[in-house]
């Protein structure tokens, strides 16, 4: 197997990731890419306790993740790569040939406009997503596997609200 899902989710490790996607995809590991978490052992322990014992979790800064990408892609298990923001995913896409990105959760914050029940975006974030699509990356929003993927055009139009 390999990395089967590249997901942007500001909640990082939570029920939808570990259970919602983790069980049907038979996920064996999660790569959590976040500069803050990668620098703080306490944060890592917090997230480590959120995954079941049969699932490994690895923590990397964005720069570090790029160096490790080949290793994770050749892992015999299925894995999820997770970032907490669009900018970090974009850095990975620019350098590592990711072809599909799942927008799983970007929640309400100052300056963001609601585009989907679980996606709120600033104008800059919308531009970043369009930029990803312009590079040939398939960008869809989908919180859980049973939900219908929402195309980027529909997401940004807010037509699924």
């Amino acid at each position, binding site marked *: 197997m390999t990395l089967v899902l590249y997901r942007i989710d500001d909640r*990082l490790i*939570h*029920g939808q990731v*570990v259970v919602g996607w983790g069980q049907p995809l038979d996920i064996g590991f999660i790569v959590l890419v976040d500069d803050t978490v990668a620098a703080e052992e306490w944060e890592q322990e*917090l997230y480590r306790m959120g995954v079941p014992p049969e699932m490994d979790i690895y923590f990397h800064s964005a720069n570090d993740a790029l160096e490790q990408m080949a290793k994770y892609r050749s892992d015999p298990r299925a894995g999820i790569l997770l970032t907490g923001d669009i900018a970090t995913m974009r850095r990975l896409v620019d350098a590592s040939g990711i072809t599909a990105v799942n927008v799983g959760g970007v*929640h309400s914050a100052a300056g963001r406009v609601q585009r989907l029940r679980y996606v709120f975006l600033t104008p800059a974030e919308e531009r970043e997503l369009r930029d990803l699509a312009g590079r040939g990356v398939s960008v869809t929003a989908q919180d859980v596997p049973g939900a219908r993927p929402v195309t980027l055009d529909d997401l940004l139009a807010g037509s699924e609200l």
Partner: protein
Amino acid sequence: MSSEATQSDQKPVHRAIVAGHGEFAAGLVSAVEQITGRGSQLIPIAVHQLGVADIEALLRERMIAADVRVIFTDLQAGSCTMASRRILRGMDDAVLIAGANLPTLLDFVFAEGMSAPQAARHAAERGRAAIAVHGAGA
């Protein structure tokens, strides 16, 4: 006859927060109220559409406002659990019970002779033991 006042003749005292996915909290608190009439001890909190920082802020604000030191959440990996663990990091007298179920909360609301944190620990054991499997199906 118990000498304890019932909730019908005194102002309800909140003793814990219940938080989790969807309507988990409201559903469980509703069930506790239906079974015991003591649901008002519990504050149900839903976190739809909130990011991690907002969940933490909401739970912290409600804990302080109601002066409670116990949080029940639904899932070890859940956002409410993560946020609660961050809150507990700076609140030494608080307790988080992750993976709470209805038997847990029923035990908690009746354990009024204990402090709320003590009652929560006791209730966690009761909830853990309350899961049973019936039938011989493979």
